[in-house]
């Protein structure tokens, strides 16, 4: 069995979670009940077990209604339970061991044994642990997030964005009806029965929350009472019926998302816009009330604290009623501007047809330092997604970025990134005869490699690297498929499956053959460090012949100790991000090899798509800590380049040059690629018209995406020295935004190293 620690933190968490409302003893009892139920259903179908376990959790996990909430639905998360992602709770029937260990401290010592018993049970039953036992490979394949490995893998069902149109059109009763029809048409099965039971559970959660609204009414002001009455009425309406009003639609969507355990929401303007527009038109709602309701949604999402998720997407092609949707968009833009929360990750899709006032409002919000919205160019993405995912235009129009920026097709595809690959580590291993210079461990996994002494040309070096990459790509597809297999053995993700095409039609859960498009993604790290390394090696070793390849290897392995001159030559070789043809061509060559390598393996394995995403949360820094010095002049332990951006400080040729470099890659080969850029307010706000035109050129040249941080020169440095004065300073790290002063020191350094334009 592979060595691994079940206590390894499973995801990036910058935001501090709100502690459970339930007392520790109540939590313990609930976890025991959950565990007992799980045990009792051993040998029953996974669907029966799942719904029985869900009934233990819900409605028990619902928290009280907070005084400012305008619709209902807040949940506690315990170290043991059911879920689909690692950012809140865990995956399938889960136990988050490090949290369970920490939980113990909340209990009196004589109760610790009870926790230990749970711990032991879940060691054998936690889904992710089961996966790790099968998927990990000593020294080669590690678990999320263990930075000693070149490849890390996990089991999770991230980024599900449900078909809320179906939910709105049918309501809970309509869903029941559709399931029953299919039950008759095909044949009855556990999935259908458990799905119906899930919808009943939904209705009882509505009742439970309606009770909570009545509790909250006690002693409330008349105004608050009215709000709570509206909330109660909405809950009682949507427990069976399809929504009529915006408040009902919002309540239905939210409660369903909570029970499904999804943390990305998708095209809310498309789903909720028509309800909102109608209510405004009919005078059922004022603009101010609409603003407050959306603000309440923003707060609900923020309070879930997922750090890297919470996507709300507005704008773009393929919406059913763009005019109504844009009404939602405009109000949402104001909310994003005024809230300054790190979540939701508010995202604007746009194309040439997007109304000018929406673009301007977006730039205003960005200019205010909100870091939102992030900008996605449909003119590039729609045709790109068609090719990347092999779908038609209508389908591609429903692409949505989730989490750190991976795409799925809303309501139609699974695209969870269960693999992360450190391309730079693999280059170092390729040049060191299979050994990772960081720890001296052989990570070649048996791939035959030439020692540097015998590599006579750049081409031989490059093809050796590609050979090792190919092997790691094989491991990637295997690990992704295995994650689906293991999850499917254990659970059906019932609530999610009900709202994903074509699970009901086929009578199958998402990973059991129900999902229309089975996709997946691989997060790549160090892509630009690799291409800049290759450019530098080509120049310094093979063209200028300053050192031999083996001498270079040795000097870099010593972290340039005694040979800083060599480091300087490497650092001064052409770098990506400067519109330099040599560096950018190399970056593209590496990109195409990696992108195609992953994509082809997915197609061969029968998936609709398996794509790289050049995304990033803060793993570029965390993995960098455990990555040796590299041939681009990067020091040992230093952060790697963020997403599709240059290594901090390497792009010295101005904003247009950087934007030109960013457009070099074929968006039709990846499943999302992130571009960060930093401006001073003087440039961004003082010369808005120029900035707007500059962005337009970038997007016309094939720029797919952009995320903007606005800071003054020296401001980040001041914030480091005096954090208390900068609690309000937001930065875009990559796949998430954060309060700068809450970040760890070297992550702050990475942010500061990025070139500031203006």
């Amino acid at each position, binding site marked *: 069995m592979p060595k691994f620690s079940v206590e390894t933190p499973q995801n990036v968490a910058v935001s501090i979670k709100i502690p459970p409302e339930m007392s520790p003893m109540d939590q313990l009892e609930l976890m025991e009940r959950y565990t007992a139920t799980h045990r009792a259903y051993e040998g029953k179908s996974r669907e029966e077990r799942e719904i029985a376990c869900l009934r233990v959790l819900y409605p028990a996990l619902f928290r009280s209604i907070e005084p400012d909430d305008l619709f209902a639905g807040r949940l506690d998360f315990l170290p043991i339970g059911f879920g689909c992602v690692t950012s809140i709770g865990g995956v399938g029937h889960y136990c988050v061991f490090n949290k369970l260990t920490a939980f113990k401290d909340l209990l009196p010592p004589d109760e610790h044994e009870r926790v230990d018993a749970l711990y032991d049970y879940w060691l054998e039953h936690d889904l992710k642990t089961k996966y790790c036992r099968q998927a990990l490979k000593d020294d080669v394949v590690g678990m999320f997030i263990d930075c000693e490995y070149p490849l890390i893998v996990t089991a999770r069902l991230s980024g599900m964005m449900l078909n809320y149109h179906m939910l709105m059109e049918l309501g809970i009763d309509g869903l029941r009806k559709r399931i029953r029809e299919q039950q008759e048409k095909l044949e009855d099965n556990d999935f259908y029965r458990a799905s119906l039971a899930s919808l009943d559970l939904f209705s009882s959660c509505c009742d439970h929350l309606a009770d909570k609204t009545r509790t909250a009414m006690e002693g409330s002001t008349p105004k608050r009472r009215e709000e709570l009455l509206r909330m109660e009425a909405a809950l009682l309406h949507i427990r069976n019926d399809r929504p009529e009003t915006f408040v009902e639609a919002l309540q239905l969507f939210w409660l369903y998302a909570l029970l499904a355990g999804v943390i990305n929401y998708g095209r809310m303007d498309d789903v909720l816009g028509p309800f909102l527009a109608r209510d405004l038109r009919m005078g059922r709602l004022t603009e101010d009330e609409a603003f407050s309701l959306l603000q309440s949604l923003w707060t609900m999402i923020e309070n879930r604290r997922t750090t890297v998720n919470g996507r709300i997407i507005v704008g773009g092609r393929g919406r059913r009623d763009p005019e109504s949707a844009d009404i939602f968009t405009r109000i949402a833009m104001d909310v994003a501007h005024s809230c300054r929360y790190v979540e939701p990750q508010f995202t604007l899709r746009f194309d040439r047809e997007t109304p000018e006032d929406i673009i301007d409002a977006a730039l205003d919000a960005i200019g205010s330092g909100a870091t939102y919205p992030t900008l996605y160019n449909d003119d590039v993405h729609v045709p790109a997604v068609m090719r990347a995912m092999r779908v038609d235009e209508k389908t591609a129009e429903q692409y949505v970025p989730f989490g750190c920026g991976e795409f799925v097709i809303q309501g139609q595809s699974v695209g969870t990134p269960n693999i992360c690959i450190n391309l730079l580590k693999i280059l170092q291993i390729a040049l060191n005869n299979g050994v990772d210079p960081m720890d001296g461990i052989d990570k070649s996994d048996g791939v035959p490699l030439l020692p540097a002494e015998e590599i006579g040309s750049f081409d031989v070096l490059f093809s050796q690297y590609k050979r090792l990459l190919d092997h790691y790509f094989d491991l990637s597809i295997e690990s992704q498929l295995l994650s689906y297999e293991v999850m499917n053995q254990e659970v059906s993700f019932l609530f999610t499956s009900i709202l994903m095409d074509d699970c009901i039609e086929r009578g199958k859960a998402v990973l059991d053959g129900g999902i229309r498009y089975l996709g997946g993604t691989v997060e790549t790290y160090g892509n630009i460090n690799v291409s800049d390394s290759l450019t530098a090696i080509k120049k310094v070793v093979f063209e200028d012949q300053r050192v031999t390849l083996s001498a270079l290897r040795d000097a870099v392995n010593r972290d340039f100790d005694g*040979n*800083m*001159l060599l*480091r*300087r*030559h490497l*650092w*001064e070789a052409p770098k990506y991000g400067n*519109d330099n043809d040599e560096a950018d061509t190399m970056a593209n060559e590496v990109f195409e090899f990696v992108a195609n390598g992953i994509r082809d393996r997915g197609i061969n394995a029968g998936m609709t798509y398996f794509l790289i995403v050049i995304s990033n949360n803060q793993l570029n820094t965390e993995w960098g800590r455990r990555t040796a010095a590299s041939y681009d002049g990067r020091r040992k332990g230093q952060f790697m380049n963020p997403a599709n951006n240059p290594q901090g400080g390497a792009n010295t*040729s*101005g*904003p*247009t*040059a950087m934007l*030109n470099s960013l457009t070099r890659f074929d968006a039709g080969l990846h499943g999302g690629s992130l571009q960060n850029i930093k401006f001073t307010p003087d*440039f961004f706000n003082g*010369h808005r018209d*120029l900035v707007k*035109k*500059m962005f*337009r*050129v970038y997007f*016309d*040249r094939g720029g797919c995406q952009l995320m903007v941080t606005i800071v003054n020169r020296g401001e980040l440095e001041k914030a480091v020295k005096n954090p208390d004065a900068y609690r309000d300073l937001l930065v875009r790290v990559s796949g998430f935004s954060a309060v700068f002063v809450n970040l760890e020191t070297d992550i702050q350094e990475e942010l500061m190293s990025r070139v500031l*334009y*203006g």
Partner: protein
Amino acid sequence: MDNPKFFVTSIERGAYHDGPGLRTVVFFQGCPLHCAWCCNPETQPFRPVLLHDGRRCVACGNCVPHCPQQALSLREGRLHVDRSRCISCGRCVPVCPGGAYSLSSEIMSSEEILAVVMKDADYYRATGGGLTLSGGEPFCQQGVEVLLSQAKQAGLTTCVETTAALSYKVLESVLPYVDFFYIDLKHSDRDVLLRETGADLDLVTSNIGKLMDDGANVTLRTAVIPGYNDDLPTLRSIFHLALALGVTTYVLLPFHQLGRAKYAKLGQPYTLEHLKTLTPEDMSEAAALGRRMGLDIRIGG
């Protein structure tokens, strides 16, 4: 001479302060004046000069034996450059592990310059931007009219930041190729101007007048320096001069010390350390004055 060569100190892309739209600014080596507040002092000499960045120097002594002029020595743990010996041969540059050395400029042909400039053609088209020449004094460069005419042929707007302290013949010869002249008007007092900058006020003003007569698009700029020209009476008389010359487009540049590090790298004293950095807000009174007098005033850039 269809591909003249120049000493180029740097090229800045995506600039937004030096003329309309997004621009690429090419900085040249060599200036006839010697303003104490110059923020690009390395561009003043007409030949490349050596910069040595003490913050990057680890005093390893690597460079010392490489200098053919024996201009380098290590004393008391510090590297000294004997400027009187240095001939800017550049041999010390590649051997320094810290990257402490650089030569102030490199030779580039107009073709090479334009190749860089044209990379942003799309941005110029969208924003009405183009090429800006700066320095140094661009008009002291042999062949600058060729570069400018080639830029015009390529469809770019052109802007030149000049002292105008040179013969009108030169300015006249480039008239067809320059869309915007940005000219420094540093002081209105003949003697003070000569003493502090080396410029001849009569020459500068007569050149501006002639440019106006010839229909050129002229913007005047004044770097506002505390204790030199920042008092309202002086500014008023500078503004008067501008109005008398028929120019109304005006830019005030608040004094800053951003060039200070470069003086250290050149081994030259920086004499303005005691002066206060001015903010755009500090300019508001002066700007209001100018506006009352009929000038169209912008602050900064």
